[in-house]
């Protein structure tokens, strides 16, 4: 009779209970307004729950009351650090629905801009990821190079962050005369700068200790979690929409898909670094073979696609971003569904974090490369 209540008390000398820690929504390393509810045993993560939606704007619903051309700028604001890539997905979807042939020059310029955006996005990721792990200097170095890309964008598009580069049917304007030389100048300095980051991180003991073996996702599990982008490739799955379902002008270029072996944070880091180099190669090839001609296809003033539905997806810096459009023959889509890579990739955070420490959760949010504008839509 007496033993029963005492038994639980005798097992442990001190009362110990799990602590619930709210990380975010206002927290410097949740990359926006993500709220992570951690259940901690000491500093070890026992359970984790992501609370999203603090940035919800209802983009999919808004799209139902806007014309096809009016929707495009909303896509800039999804993944706001890779606006150009998002645009490419949406305009590609509408072009597929309208069955418009985009001029060759426009396709090439789209590839140039998208790959530059990929470099910018990966640089931002590198900086913030390193900052989360404590290497502050890398952030400043990465932003220095990202600034160059943003300047190139600014002179072409007028905006730096939400660069609204593409229109349905091509580009609104042709690029400015110095565009090519400026991009080439940037590509010249880039390899040396990448070497700088790699000197700071690649063989750094502390960096290795913080990333190797952290958040290991075996290939099968990564596929089951429907992870895409560098996260999936870091686990050793060679899946890239640019190769798997080529779109735009990508079949014209030679490039490699870097994959990792171990599926840990370090492999994902290596993958992204290699992707920056490959993106630079693609930009160079696109500039070399840049054809002359118009940049805009013939598109009716009022876009009224035929009745039907279409799914179009591209390889954004974060992963596979897709759009599912249902047209009822009017000038507004009946339904627009976005496949947001950040949101779907975020689901693997729980699987990766359990058993690791709080400090690793921060590194793992970083390695997933999420943008809350896209998670919450």
């Amino acid at each position, binding site marked *: 009779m007496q033993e029963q209540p005492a038994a639980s008390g005798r097992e442990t000398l001190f009362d110990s209970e799990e*602590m619930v*820690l709210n990380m975010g929504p206002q*927290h*410097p*390393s949740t990359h926006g307004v993500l709220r992570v509810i951690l259940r901690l045993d000491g*500093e070890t993560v026992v359970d984790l729950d992501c609370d999203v939606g603090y940035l919800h704007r209802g983009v999919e619903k808004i799209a139902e009351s806007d014309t096809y051309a009016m929707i495009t700028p909303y896509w800039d604001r999804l993944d706001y650090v890779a606006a150009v890539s998002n645009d490419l997905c949406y305009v590609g979807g509408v072009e597929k629905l309208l069955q418009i042939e985009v001029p060759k020059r426009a396709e090439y310029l789209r590839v140039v801009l998208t790959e530059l955006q990929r470099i910018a996005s990966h640089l931002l990721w590198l900086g913030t990821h*390193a*900052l*989360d*792990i*404590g*290497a*502050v*200097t890398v952030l*400043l*170095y990465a932003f*220095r190079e990202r600034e160059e890309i943003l300047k190139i964008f600014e002179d072409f598009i007028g905006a730096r962050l939400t660069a609204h580069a593409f229109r349905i049917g091509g580009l609104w304007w042709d690029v400015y005369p110095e565009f090519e030389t400026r991009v080439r100048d940037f590509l010249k300095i880039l390899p040396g700068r990448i070497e700088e980051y790699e000197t*700071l*991180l690649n063989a*750094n*003991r*502390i*960096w*290795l*200790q*913080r990333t*190797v*073996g952290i958040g*290991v996702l*075996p290939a099968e599990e990564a596929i089951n979690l429907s992870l895409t982008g560098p996260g999936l490739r870091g686990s050793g799955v060679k899946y890239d929409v640019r190769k798997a379902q080529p779109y735009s002008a990508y079949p014209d270029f030679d490039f490699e898909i870097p994959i990792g*072996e*171990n599926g840990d944070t370090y492999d994902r880091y290596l993958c992204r670094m290699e992707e920056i180099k490959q993106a630079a190669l693609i930009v160079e090839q696109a500039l070399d073979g840049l054809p002359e001609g118009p940049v805009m296809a013939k598109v009716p003033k009022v876009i009224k696609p035929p009745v039907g539905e279409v799914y179009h997806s591209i390889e954004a810096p974060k992963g596979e971003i897709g759009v599912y459009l249902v047209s009822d023959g009017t000038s507004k889509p009946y339904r627009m569904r976005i496949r947001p890579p950040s949101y779907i990739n975020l689901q693997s955070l729980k699987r990766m974090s359990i058993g690791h*420490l*709080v*400090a*690793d959760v*921060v590194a793992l949010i970083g390695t997933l490369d999420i943008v809350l504008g896209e998670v919450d839509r």
Partner: protein
Amino acid sequence: MQGILATLMFVAPDWVRNTVTHERPPNVFWADYVVWPVLQILIVLFIVLTLVAYLVYLERKVSAFMQARLGPMRVGPWGLLQPAADGLKLLLKEDIIPLKADRVVFALAPIISVVSALVVLAVIPWGAAWATIANINIGLLFILAVSSVGVLGLVLAGWASNSKYSLLGALRSSAQMVSYEIGLGLSIIGALMFARTLSMSGIVEAQQADHIWYVFFQPLGFLVYVISALGETNRAPFDLPEAESELVAGYHTEYSGFRWALFFMAEYSAMIVTAAIAVTLFLGGWMLPGVTGTSFFGWFGPIQNPTLHTIASVVVFGLKIMLLIYAYMWFRWTWPRYRYDQLMELGWKWMIPAGLANIVLTGIWYVLAMPPSRGGVFNLMREVGGRLVPTGKGALYFFVTGTAITVPLVWLLLANINRRSRDFNLHDQRQLQINLRRERLEKALQPQAADNGAQ
């Protein structure tokens, strides 16, 4: 004007001391133990607190130059008045105490922290002769004892804030500082064997008598000391208690205004203190061959004028401290941050055993070198004024044993012990994991293949 300045800076201390001590013999107690020390304390506090403010400025400038930016530039020329502006801003800020905080302890914590950091300044030999406030014979023990009280401030701050982030930060800092203090304590014993005194000025004088800085006898001790000191002062890459990206600001998350500034002050003066101990123990204190203390290999001697010599010694000491602090800043802006368990592993599996091994090996080298009359073998030391001083050959012997034998031997020993640890050989561990996974996958695939074959 210059004459007045010179009088104030160079002549006044000696003059004050001489007037109060020699002209009024009955008041010797007041002069020696009250007036003169108070003057010294005020000067040291003024200089150190100004230095702390400017270390923040320096930190920002150094980080800026490392990161291809300019740093503070707006307040004054090159932003030189930035510390004043920061201090004013912090003073004028609202003093927020969380509703559920323990108000008394919350207010007490930063005071404990800053007092323990500043009290230690009393026994540091800032220079030769009159440039030390208190030359007590257990100076080093005093420093170690008082500076560990600082941990209490952090723990109390974390507890009194009644916030989870603060509590986690405080827990981390207490565990970290306690662990690294052991390594710190062990690393200095080797140098103490040579100095044979705990008085801080005595240690410098011992190095003067031995004609060598103890870093040459004790390279391992110095290494362990510097790394442990980084951990002890919560500097990057060991700045876990205040890991911004995880814990927002650690134990001082809930602090604002000048209370927060006190923590900052404590951190930076702790930096100065640890650097000062390293300089005193390992880098010859205020001595620089040819300028202060000893002659430059017999070519030209130290400064002869005693006042000038003391002033020069203070400058030399300050420069050596700044050199170490610059290294601290360099580390901070280059390296990522350790994780909590890795930090503990480094402390317990590397720093403490290395400190212990260093004590044992130094002891062996020391006993072997003693003269046969005192139980030694090689007779590489002679007795001068009750202390054993290594001869020319002896210095070479200690240098060679310290660098060429102790360091590789301890490295080999610890590497072999720690080889199976998860973080030691990362590339091998990685390959091992990959192979294991591959084997498991193959095993999982084999029965499936057999099933397919049967069908």
